[in-house]
């Protein structure tokens, strides 16, 4: 019966694993909803922000802010990479990093240098091992990230852009499509890509207090911050969704493993009984 006992221990350990994965699955399921609420709550701000910037672009024709002007030569590119703090969320981070790294490599092949800021523990862990220049990082944002936690890393990049150290800024994050789908996304933050509501001219202009440059600088900085914040929230929702799916798969696999192990266990038990009977019968016959 030695084999049977080993199998029984194995079944018990798989059972315990299943308990953990089940718990993680349910925790993530409830956290997704909260993350989605956060995403929804921050949407009016970015919508209003876009409107204001749209109006500004329509109104103000004589002054062009550097954030809106495409630079001719690109010598250095900045990346803001948003990852999760914890693992056990399937291929979420891996897919994102693969995409980010291949994008970074294409720049490096062209002789363009790359600066990074990392948001989230996983990105920090990976990129400190690679040959890239990490200029800022922030980790452990928690379940309710706040824009105050992100100001630092964003300012590092915005200063680098205004100071001419970087000529372009990219944002890398997981876009939450729905619970089953998360898309790794690379967006261009700076210079702000021209969109339909950022084009065109109008005859009227705002009254600016104190002056157009300061106001535009302020508005654009806040806009970039809100974009990064929104991306952090998307990434958070993606993390929980991916973890829920991964843990559900793990629980299902554990159930399957337990089923087949039970079958093996029963067979071993049956074999042991049969053997014992035949030994007894053989012994009786010999007597």
């Amino acid at each position, binding site marked *: 019966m030695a084999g049977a006992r080993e199998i029984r221990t194995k079944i018990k350990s798989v059972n315990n694993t299943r308990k953990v994965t089940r718990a993680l699955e349910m925790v993530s399921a409830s956290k997704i909803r909260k993350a989605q609420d956060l995403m929804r709550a921050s949407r009016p*701000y970015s919508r209003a922000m876009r409107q204001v910037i749209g*109006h500004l672009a329509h109104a103000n024709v004589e002054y062009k802010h550097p954030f809106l002007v495409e630079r001719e030569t690109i010598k250095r590119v900045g990346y803001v990479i948003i990852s999760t703090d914890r693992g056990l969320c399937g291929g979420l981070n891996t897919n994102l990093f693969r995409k980010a790294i291949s994008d970074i490599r294409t720049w490096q092949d062209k002789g363009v240098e790359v600066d990074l800021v990392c948001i989230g523990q996983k990105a920090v862990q990976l990129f400190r091992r690679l040959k890239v220049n990490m200029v800022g990082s922030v980790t452990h944002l928690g379940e309710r990230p706040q824009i105050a936690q992100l100001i*630092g890393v964003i300012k*590092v990049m915005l200063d680098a852009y205004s100071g001419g150290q970087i000529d372009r800024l990219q944002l890398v994050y997981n876009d939450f499509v729905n619970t089953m789908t998360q898309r790794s996304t690379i967006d261009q933050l700076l210079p702000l890509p021209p969109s339909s509501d950022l084009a065109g001219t109008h005859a009227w202009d705002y009254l600016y207090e104190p002056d157009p440059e300061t106001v535009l600088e302020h508005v654009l900085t806040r806009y970039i911050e809100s974009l990064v914040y929104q991306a952090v929230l998307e990434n958070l929702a993606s993390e929980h969704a991916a973890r829920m799916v991964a843990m559900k798969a793990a629980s299902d696999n554990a159930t399957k493993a337990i089923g087949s192990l039970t079958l093996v266990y029963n067979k071993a038990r049956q074999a042991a009984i049969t053997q014992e009977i035949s030994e007894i019968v053989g012994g009786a016959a010999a007597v």
Partner: protein
Amino acid sequence: MSTIRCDIVSAEQEIFYGSAQMVIASGEAGELGIAPRHAPLITRLKPGQVRLLLENGEEQFFYVSGGILEVQPSVVTILADTAIRAKDLDESAALKAKDEAERALANRADAMEIAQAQAQLAQAVAQLQALEKLRRSLKH
């Protein structure tokens, strides 16, 4: 009676949406009272109160720690900051982010040690497994 639509939002939530007779806020250049059909205006806000005179004559107050006020003839949009912002504070936040990155990079030595330890652990486990196998084959 004419009213103006007012929309107060922060990056983290929508704070107010509705119509008002007048919006009073403290802009960078001074107090502003925005009535309907105000000329288009955009300004930074100082930390302070935003006062709304609602349609039914009631007053409502909000505190903003800075932000942007945009006026269109029929709409007032206030993009409120949630965090307390000042140039020095922002600078120190940026420095902190840089420090954190440097610390992460400085820990690279630790990561190497961890990798080494992991390799040693893997070796030890392999040796143990070999011993276990040997023991079992001796038993039989």
